[in-house]
C-alpha cells in the first residue's frame, strides 16, 4: 500500500525576514469571488455616506480684529503665518498652528486696502485709504522699539490693490491707474491707464511673471505686460469684476469674480469668451483664490458662503457656511493645498479644510490605501443615483436655499421666453437656441471684438428679450 501524505513547501508560506509582509495565499478565480459589482457598489455607497459623515470642514476661527477683515496675505515661506488687514487700518499677524495673534500694528488710517508678502518672506507691503504704501518688517520689533514701517511712499491718490512680483523687487498697485513700482524708488517706474478712472484689483501672473491683470470699474479686465508701455488688451463684461486670480500652474488661465454672481475663467489669449462660467453664488462674488495645485479655486461671496469650484467645473463641488459668518470679503487657499482661510465682515478669520472629509495628520499606509480605494470607488460609481444623491447633498441656510430656487426659476423663465421668441417673434426669427447663454462657451456674455478691446456685451437680437417688454408678434 502506498500512502500519500500532505506535504508543504515552507517557502510558500514562511517569510524570509521578519520585515516582509505575511504571505497570504490568494486565489483570484472569479468564481470564488462572485457579485463583484454589487459588492463594490455597496462599498462605494458606504464610502460616500461615510465621507459625508466625516465632512466637518470648519477648523477654527481667529478673532481679534475690531473691524471687518478687508484683506489677507499668505506668508510665502511659512505655512503657519497669516497676515490680515482690517477696515480700521489694523494689521494682524497670526500663528495658525497656535491659533493666536502674534503681532498687531496700526498700519493705516482708514481701510487696509491691500497687503502682500515679499517673495523672500522677510517683509510685507500694505496700502491703505490714507494714500500711502508702507513696507514692514516681518519680524516684530524688539522690546521697547517703535512699530515703524521700513518705507513709506506717499501717493497722489488712494490705492485699492497691491501685488508683488514673483521674483524681482518690483510691485504693482492700482487705484486711479495701475502703477509698477521699484522697491528702491518713491515714484512708479511705469503707470498704465486706458481711459478708466479706478481699478479694484491688480494681480501678477505667478508663472509668466512679467504679466499682470487688473479689474477696472468700467466693467473691464485689463491685461498688462510690465515691459511694455501700453496695456495689452481688455475685455469688457456686462458687470464689474471684483478681483481676479491667475492659475499658478497654467500660465494663461485666470479667473475673475463678478458682480453678476458668477465667476469667469478666461484664457488670456482668447478673451472673446470665457472658457467656463462658474455659477452657484446667489450674490456678488467678492474674492477668488486658486489652490496651489491649480486644479481648483475657492471663491468668497456676499451671500455669506464660500464655494469651491474645480477649475473647469461649471458648478461648485463644495459650499461652506456658518451661522455667524457674514459677507465673506477675502479668501485664501493655503500653500500646502490643505486649508482655506476666509476673512469676513464680522471681524473673524476662519480656517477651513480644503477637503471637508479628509483626515488631517499622518495616515498609516493601510489607512491611506483604504482611503484611495474608497476614493476610486466613489469615482467609479459617481453616476449611480443613490451615490450621487448622497455625495451631492449639502445643507444650506433657508434664505440661501430659497434664493437659489428663485434664481433658478428666473433663469428658466428667461429661457422659456427666449424659446418663445425664437419660434414666434418676427424680429427675433434669427435667434437660435445655440445663442442661449450657457455655462460653457459664453455664459451671460457675448463678445464682439473691436480692435484691441473685446466687448463682452449682448448682441442686438438679445435686446429683444433683455428689455423684456417686447410684445410677442405672431408670425403670419
Amino acid at each position, binding site marked *: *500500500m502506498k500512502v*500519500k501524505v500532505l506535504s508543504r513547501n515552507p517557502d510558500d508560506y514562511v517569510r524570509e525576514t521578519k520585515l516582509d509582509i505575511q504571505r497570504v495565499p490568494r486565489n483570484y*478565480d*472569479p468564481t470564488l*469571488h462572485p457579485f*463583484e*459589482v*454589487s459588492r*463594490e*457598489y*455597496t462599498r462605494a455607497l458606504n464610502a460616500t*455616506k461615510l465621507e459625508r459623515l466625516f465632512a466637518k470642514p470648519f477648523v477654527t476661527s481667529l478673532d481679534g480684529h475690531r473691524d471687518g477683515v478687508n484683506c489677507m496675505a499668505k506668508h*510665502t515661506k511659512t505655512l503657519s503665518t497669516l497676515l490680515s488687514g482690517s477696515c480700521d487700518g489694523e494689521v494682524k499677524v497670526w500663528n495658525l498652528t497656535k491659533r493666536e495673534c502674534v503681532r498687531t500694528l496700526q498700519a493705516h488710517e482708514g481701510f487696509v486696502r491691500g497687503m502682500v508678502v515679499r517673495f523672500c518672506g522677510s517683509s510685507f507691503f500694505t496700502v491703505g485709504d490714507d494714500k500711502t504704501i508702507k513696507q514692514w518688517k516681518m519680524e516684530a520689533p524688539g522690546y521697547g522699539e517703535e512699530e515703524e514701517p521700513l518705507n513709506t511712499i506717499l501717493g497722489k491718490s488712494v490705492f485699492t490693490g497691491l501685488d508683488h512680483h*514673483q521674483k524681482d523687487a518690483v510691485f504693482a498697485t492700482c487705484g486711479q491707474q495701475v502703477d509698477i513700482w521699484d522697491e528702491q524708488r518713491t515714484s512708479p517706474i511705469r503707470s498704465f491707464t486706458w481711459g478708466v478712472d479706478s481699478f479694484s484689483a491688480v494681480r501678477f501672473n505667478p*508663472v*509668466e*511673471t512679467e504679466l499682470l491683470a487688473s479689474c477696472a470699474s468700467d466693467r473691464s479686465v485689463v*491685461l498688462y*505686460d510690465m515691459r511694455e508701455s*501700453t496695456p495689452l*488688451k481688455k475685455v469688457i463684461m456686462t458687470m464689474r469684476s471684483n478681483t481676479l486670480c491667475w492659475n*499658478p*500652474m*497654467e*500660465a494663461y488661465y485666470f479667473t475673475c469674480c463678478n458682480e453678476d454672481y458668477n465667476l469667469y475663467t478666461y484664457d*488670456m489669449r482668447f478673451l472673446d469668451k470665457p472658457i467656463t462660467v462658474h455659477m*452657484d453664488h446667489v450674490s456678488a462674488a467678492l474674492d477668488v483664490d486658486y489652490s*496651489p*495645485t491649480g486644479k481648483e479655486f475657492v471663491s468668497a461671496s456676499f451671500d455669506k458662503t464660500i464655494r469651491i469650484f474645480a477649475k*473647469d*467645473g461649471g*458648478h*461648485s*463641488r463644495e459650499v461652506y457656511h456658518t451661522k455667524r459668518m457674514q459677507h465673506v470679503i477675502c479668501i485664501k487657499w493655503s500653500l*500646502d*493645498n490643505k486649508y482655506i482661510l476666509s476673512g469676513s465682515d464680522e471681524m473673524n478669520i476662519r480656517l477651513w479644510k480644503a477637503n471637508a472629509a479628509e483626515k488631517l495628520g499622518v495616515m498609516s499606509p493601510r489607512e491611506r*490605501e483604504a482611503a*484611495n*480605494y474608497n*476614493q*476610486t*470607488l466613489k469615482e*467609479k460609481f459617481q453616476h*449611480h*443615483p*443613490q451615490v*450621487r*444623491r*448622497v455625495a*451631492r*447633498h*449639502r*445643507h444650506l441656510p433657508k434664505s440661501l436655499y430659497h434664493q437659489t430656487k428663485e434664481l433658478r426659476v428666473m433663469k428658466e423663465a428667461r429661457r422659456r421666453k427666449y424659446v418663445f421668441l425664437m419660434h414666434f417673434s418676427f424680429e427675433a426669427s434669427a435667434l437660435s437656441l445655440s445663442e442661449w447663454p*450657457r*455655462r*460653457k*462657451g*459664453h455664459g451671460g456674455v457675448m463678445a464682439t471684438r473691436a*480692435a*484691441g478691446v473685446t466687448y463682452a456685451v449682448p448682441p442686438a437680437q438679445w435686446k429683444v428679450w433683455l428689455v423684456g417688454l417686447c410684445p410677442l408678434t405672431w408670425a403670419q
Partner: protein
Amino acid sequence: MAKASKKKVSKAVVKAMDTTAAVTPDVVYDEEDEEDLSKADEVITSEDEDGEDERRRQKLLEAISALGGKRKKTLGERSEPSVQMSEFTVNADGEGDKIDLSDLIGTVERTSAVPATTKKQLKNLQRSTKPIACPLSKQESQRIQRDVAFQKAATEVTRWKSIIKQNQRAEQLVFPLNQEPIGPKPMERVVSGWKAQTPLEQEIFAVLSANKQPINDPILTPTEEASMRAMSLEEAKIRRAELQKARALQSYYEAKARREKKIKSKTYHKVQNKAKRKEFLKQFDEMVVADPASALEELNKIEMSRMQERMSLKHQNSGKWAKSKAIMAKYDDGARKAMQQQLEVNKTLTQKLVSSLNEEEEEEEKDEADAEVLPELVNDAEQVLNSLNPWMRGKLSEEHKEKEISNTVDLTAEGPGNTVEEDEDEEEVEETEEEKLLREFESRRKLRHALETDAAPLTCMDDNTEDKAAAENPDVSDKEEEELSEFTSLFRGIADSLQEAESETAEAGEDHSTPLEEDLIRVRTLEDMELLSQENLPSGEAAAPPQQPPDTAALSSATEKTGKNRKRKRGIELKEVLTKGTEVIKVPLIPTTEDNEDNEDTEDRDDGLDQSGLIKEAFAGDDVISDFLKDKRKQEDAGKPKVVDLTLPGWGEWGGTSLKPSRHKRRRFRVKTAPPPPRKDRHLPSVIMSEKRNSSISLHQVSSLPFPFENHAQFESTIRSPLGRTWNTERTVKKISMPKVVTQMGAIIEPMAREELLKERKQLVLRSFSRPCSPCFPGSPVKYSITGESCVFNQKHIGYRY
C-alpha cells in the same frame, strides 16, 4: 537771360511808379503776374537801394499787393548776426533759396560707404511726386502698439501649452513639482554659513584653492568634469580595438569562404553538406526543446521549400541537363547514377516531414484522452458521493456529467470486467438525468432569488461562456487589467480633452459637473443618510420608467431624436453589466490510496446507500420539481388574459333572482382581451422568467449615459471591472487606486517655475537628438536647448517631425 531781362523790366516799372503818381492800372495788372513770380528777386534787388527810398517803395509795394487781394507774407529780413553766421555754419544768405532733395542727396552719390540699395531708394524718393502720408493719430498708433504687444505676450504664454496639456493628462501629479532628490546631502550644502575656522582648516583650504582643487562634494576639478562628459580615452581605445577586430574577422571569413568555393572536389562538398545537415538537425532538436517558436519557424521554412520543390520541376529530370543525361544514361553508368541522385534529392525534398513537435502535440492529446479515460473508478467514487447528496453538488456542469456518462457507457460496452457495476451505472445514468433537472431548477431559483432580494443593481447569474476563457487565461486577465487602467486614465483624460475641444469649437455641451443638491436638511448620522437617499428620490424617476423630459429644442426633428433618445434612455441592462459567470471547477482527482478496489467500492456503495437513505428521509415530502412546475403554471395563468363579463342582469330585459340574462346577451357583453405576447420562457420547461420590471432595482440603476462616455459599452465595461484587492493583484489595485493629485504634508507648493519650461524643452531636444534616423541639427544639443530663439526653431521642427 530771361531772368535778367525780367529783372530789368521790373526795375523799370518800379521807377516809373516812383516817378509818376498816376499809374495806369492796365500796366500794373499786366506786370503783376510776373511780379509774383519774381518776388524773391525783387527783395534781393531792393537791398541795393537807399534807406528812405526803400521804405517808401516798401509801402508802395504793400499797397499794391493789398490791391491785388493776395496777402503774401514777405520774408522778413533778419539782420541778427547769429542768423547771418549761425553756430552750425549755415549761412542765412541762401535763405530765400528752397533746399532741394538733390542738394542733400548729392553728397550721398559720391560717398562709397552708402549702400547701393539706399541710393536706389533715395533716387526713387526723389522721383516720386506723391505727398508723404501724415502720421497716425495717437489713438491709432497706441492701438497698433497694443496689438503687437499682445501678440508677443500671447506667443510667449503659448509656450506653456505642452506642459499644461501634459499635466492635465498625467495620471498622477506629485506636488511640489520640483522636489529635491532624497538622500544624504553634503555638509556644505546643508550648513550655509560654514567657514574654515581653525588654522589647520584655513591652511588646507588655502592650499586647495591655490591649486584649483574642488572644495565641495563632487570632488572633481573642472577639467575632470569636462573629461567626464567627453568619452574617456580608454573607452575610445577599446572601441577602436573592437572595430579593428571585427573588420579583421570579416576579411578572414570572406577569404575562407572564397577558398572553399574554389574547391572542385565533389566528395569534399558532399561531406561538408552532410556535416552541415547533421549540425542543423542537432540544433533543431535543441531548438525544439529550448525555443519551440523558432523551431516552428524552421519547420515552416522546410515546409515552404517542400512546396516550392513540388511546384517546380527542378529535380524531376525535365531540365536540359537531365535530358542530356537521360540520353547518355543507357551507356554511361555515371550518368545514370547522377540522374538517380537527382531524383533522390527530389524525393527527399518533397517528403513530408513528421516533426517531433507534431508528435508531441499528438502525445499530449493522447495524454488528455487518457486522463479522461483513466480515472473511471475515481469518477465513480465521486459520483457516488455526489449522488448521495443532491444538495451538495449543484455546481457540476452538464457537459461534464454527460461525458462521464458516455465514459461509463463505453466502459460497460468494452470491459467485461466491469459488468458487476453495470446495473449500478445504469441507475446512475437515470439518476444523473434527474439531478440535472434538479440542479437546473436550483440554479434558476437562485438566480430569481438573487434578482429579487439583492438591492444592488447589477446581479444576475448567467453562464457567460465567453468569460470563462478570460478567467482561465492569465494573459487575458492581464490584458484586462491593462485595459482597465487604460480606461481609467482615458476616463480621467476624456473630461479634460473634451473640455478643451469644447472651448475651441465654442460648442458648449452639457456641463458634467452637476450642481450640488442643496437642501435645508443637515445630515448628521448614517440613518439620516439612509433617509436622505430614500426620501429625496424623485418620485417620477423612482416609480415609472424614466421618461424623457420634454425637450424644446427637439421639436423640429422629433421623430429622429425620440428614437435616439429612447435608445439612450433605456436603462443599463443587467446582462450587459453582468459579471463573469460562474465557472465549473474541474479538480483532477487523484486517488489518495491505492488499495483493493473492489473492497473499497463495495464499502463506498454501502455507505452511499445509507447516506442516500438518510437524505431521502430528511427531505421526504420536499418535492421541489412539482412545486416548481406548479409555481410556473401559476405564473403563466396570472399572465393570461381574463374574460371580463360585463353583462348587467336586468338591463334591457326582465330581471330577478331566478332569472339569468340570456345567452345571447351574455355572449355579447363578454369581453375578451387580446392575448399577451408569448412568454419568453415558453420553450424552457425548467425556467420561470419574470417579465415584470423590478422597481427596487431601478432605484439603483443609472438611467442615462453619463457625461464622458460615448456609448453604453464603454460605461458598462468600467462598471464591470472590479477595483478591489479581492479581485485584483496588489500591484493592480495600487495602480488603479492611485490618487490623481498627491501633496506632501507641510510642503509649500510654489507656482510653476520657468525652469520647467526649459527642462521640458531640453528633454524634447535630447529626444530629437537621440533619434539616429533624423539628424536635424548638426550642432550640440546644449547649444540649441539653451538659447532662446533657436529653441523655438527647434521646437517647430520637432512639432513637424513627430
